């Protein structure tokens, strides 16, 4: 492994739980509904994280456990079945229903798998009912997507033994996804599908001929489940920035035995254009010091991009969880002596932020304004899971997300000067 310093820390954390990923998953699959089985806290978390402006009936909700549900499990199972029945009656357009476990449902040992199984029988042919855990005692933030996708894997149809295809796994913005597919087609990979699909009922097939490229770094369990279905998991850096995206695509073409010359000639004009577009942000970011607090698991690939392509100096990279095998290609690209910290002691970590005085901190929404109030520029990590940032063409946009807060601070300082 590289010379990076891998550290572990534990203590009070400040991260979202896996329920949060419902915020983007429900938008990706408009025919699915996410029903959290939990408490008022869970309901409040999702609406607060989403900053919801509800202009329509949302495709997520919470079955809130009440005192009487805690008394007997049998009754709670029955109650849940009733809630689901009411919901499905009200929303006949739902094709897939995810029952999402929470801390309370797990502590009282509500058996969501069993309820899902019974409901599946009752609604056969109409609605598929799945379950996974988004609880804070088991998962952080993006791991919720890992859970949801893992739950979909068993439902994927088996492909023909000889059928070769590329499967891109992890939620991407639709436009980015289309673009990546076009590029793969251009270099000669004709069958490219994605998980999650845009329609929950439109699951891609899977089998020994499937080669999986992970578009997001937080999908350990999904990757394992796909492997168990016979697919080959390709390990590469993640498609953030020019370099990461190039290596990511090259890994796929290697697996499909595509001539390197074709890949290079396809990507070269893109790379040239992106490099030019990146130039302006590079000068803004170069030499600036960056501290990433743990939240989305995108921290390591982001640090790699911001350091290698934008010249930022990395003070510390936090990550809520580190899968060394899947992250190896990324870690190898990081320069030696960078602190990579798995887990969190939020107070100690903020002490380090205060001591180091970085120019930019990537952090959760709860921490941003307190840091801004101390004069430290911040970037919300949740923005990164909502924005189209993947692929060579998006490299400049990705850099711009980090350059903007710095640029803004400069603007405001100038304004203050102009007034005094």
């Amino acid at each position: 492994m590289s010379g990076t310093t891998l550290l572990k820390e534990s203590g009070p954390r400040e991260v979202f739980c896996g329920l949060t990923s419902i915020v983007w998953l429900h938008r990706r699959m408009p025919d699915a509904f996410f029903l959290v089985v939990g408490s008022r806290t869970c309901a409040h978390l999702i609406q607060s994280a989403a900053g919801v402006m509800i202009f329509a009936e949302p495709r997520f909700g919470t079955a809130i456990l009440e005192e009487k549900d805690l008394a007997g499990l049998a009754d709670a199972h029955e109650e849940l079945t009733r809630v689901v029945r009411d919901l499905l009656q009200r929303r006949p357009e739902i094709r897939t229903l995810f029952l999402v476990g929470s801390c309370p449902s797990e502590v009282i040992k509500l058996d969501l798998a069993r309820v899902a199984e019974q409901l599946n029988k009752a609604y056969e042919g109409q609605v598929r009912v799945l379950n996974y855990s988004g609880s804070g005692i088991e998962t952080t933030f993006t791991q919720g997507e890992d859970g949801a996708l893992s739950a979909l894997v068993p439902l994927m149809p088996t492909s023909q033994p000889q059928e070769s295809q590329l499967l891109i796994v992890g939620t991407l913005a639709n436009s980015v996804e289309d673009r990546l597919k076009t590029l793969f087609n251009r270099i000669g990979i004709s069958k490219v599908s994605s998980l999650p699909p845009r329609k929950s009922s439109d699951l891609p097939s899977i089998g020994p001929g499937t080669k999986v490229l992970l578009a997001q770094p937080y999908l350990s369990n999904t990757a394992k489940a796909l492997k168990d279905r016979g697919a080959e998991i390709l390990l590469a850096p993640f498609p953030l920035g020019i370099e990461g995206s190039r290596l990511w695509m090259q890994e796929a073409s290697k697996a499909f035995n595509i001539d390197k010359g074709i890949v290079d000639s396809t990507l070269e004009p893109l790379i040239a254009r992106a490099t030019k577009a990146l130039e302006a942000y590079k000068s803004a970011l170069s030499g600036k010091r960056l501290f990433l607090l743990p939240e989305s698991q995108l921290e390591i690939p982001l640090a790699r991009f911001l350091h290698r392509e934008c010249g930022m100096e990395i003070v510390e990279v936090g990550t809520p969880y580190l899968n060394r095998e899947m992250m190896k290609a990324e870690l190898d690209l990081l320069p030696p002596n960078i602190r990579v910290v798995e887990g969190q002691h939020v107070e100690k970590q903020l002490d380090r932020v205060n001591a180091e005085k970085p120019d930019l901190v990537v952090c959760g929404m709860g921490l941003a304004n307190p840091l801004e109030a101390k004069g430290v520029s911040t970037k919300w990590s949740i923005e990164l899971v909502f924005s189209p940032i993947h692929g060579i063409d998006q490299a400049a946009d990705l850099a711009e997300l980090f350059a903007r807060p710095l640029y803004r601070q400069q603007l405001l300082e100038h304004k203050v000067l102009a007034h005094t």
Partner: protein
Amino acid sequence: MELTLWTYEGPPHVGAMRIASSMKGIHYVLHAPQGDTYADLLFTMIERRGERPPVTYTTFQARDLGGDTAELVKGHIREAVERFNPEALLVGESCTAELIQDQPGSLAHGMGLDLPIINLELPAYSKKENWGAAETFYQLVRGLLKDKVDGQTTHDPRAWKQEERNPKVNLLGPSLLGFRCRDDILEIKKLLNEHDIDVAVVAPLGATTADLLEIPKSDINVCLYPEISESTCNWLEKNFGMPFSHTVPIGVGATKDFLTEIHKLLDLPLKPNNANNESKLTWYSQSVDSNYLTGKRVFIFGDGTHAIAAARIAKQELGFEVVGLGTYSREMARPVRKAAEAIGLKALISNDYLEVESAISEAAPELVLGTQMERHCAKRLGIPCAVISTPMHVQDVPARYSPQMGWEGSNVIFDDWVHPLMMGLEEHLIGMFRHDFEFTDGHQSHLGHLGAGKAATDNSSLTESQKEDKAISESVNLDSPIWTPEGKEELSKIPFFVRGKVRKNTEKYARQAGCRKIDSETMLDAKAHFKG
């Protein structure tokens, strides 16, 4: 089990956080899993606080559950006390920790710490945020003051006379994530000072534990937000004999009543010219321009305090017609029901925003006064709206001074409520003139484009007027009567915010009368029918 798509109130421990964050020198150790830390953003984002809430979350994980979670809790308590050195410690649990029953409060008491420890038991599966805030404030005040209760309640609210000083009152109830509390405090202080009444303790917002100890030294308590401080005021009355005021000074009439009540409690004569109405609301409402406001149909929904106050202002001070009144707060159901009955309505007590939405659409109001959720729903229905109560968005925490209470509060209310109505009128005029060549297609009032960037519907680029038209053309349904082109044209001339109601009434009439086609005649018939 209750199916919730969106909730008006958070869990009770968020209420406790509101009290802890409002005060100075308090720290709250909350036994809770990591996801519960989301609550910090309510304070740092909605209120734009530059400080983190003073909360340590134990963030226990599944793997801790097999082991000794009690030790984990104690470790966090020890560390928090060392690091933050608080004057008092709140200890409690969120929904999940309540199930594992580690009793963090008792654990803390057993640790030999040398500071006041308040054990919070907030049942997460039956109670909600405002209750949690009230209970926390009460437990905190009681915890700090209970040793001073002497059984003899000799408190005399007129003591200021013998002591030859100004009367002294406490303002109890303002908190973070309350509605405009920061500015209400300033306004009420100013109001009372004009009457030579001093404000001693303001709590919880901005108070220290030392301030709480001073509470019994004042003459009376002012219960500014009953949701948060009524239980505390009751306890102080019972144990210290301190009377408290019940009138919430929102609106001109209520501000007058408030002054009268305070003076009576203090046995202080109210000089008539001193109680002069200093609000412009009264004159603005009387001015000829405001004839336009007469009988405007208004639907009111919010927390108990603000909903009740809004109903009184709407009816008595602005000449609106209140067509709906309700609250999401079970604790305030009784007074809201009473207020609704007094104006001939049945109160809507509900937690379900979809039920509130359908009540609004049924009542067909011309203005909605509600929470951020009613603003969204009013937007969908194309009805003007003003926010009068929590829960709120970041834009409901304005930078400028904008209290709800006292004279200035009434001014703010006049502006905040009448402005959207005028915008609605503008919208109508734009709709009327939209066929004129001067008006290009893209012309919109603010109603048409605000929020459109986030709107998930493809209606977002339409003006309200066009949306209503769209709804009409989409409403073709086999058994409903058909609108003739001439009928449609006539309907489009009606202001969009009542157009829906007119359409519904006309169709209802047409169905009753058995006519299949609706033209302008049918519309006039229907109008006469429903007037009669």
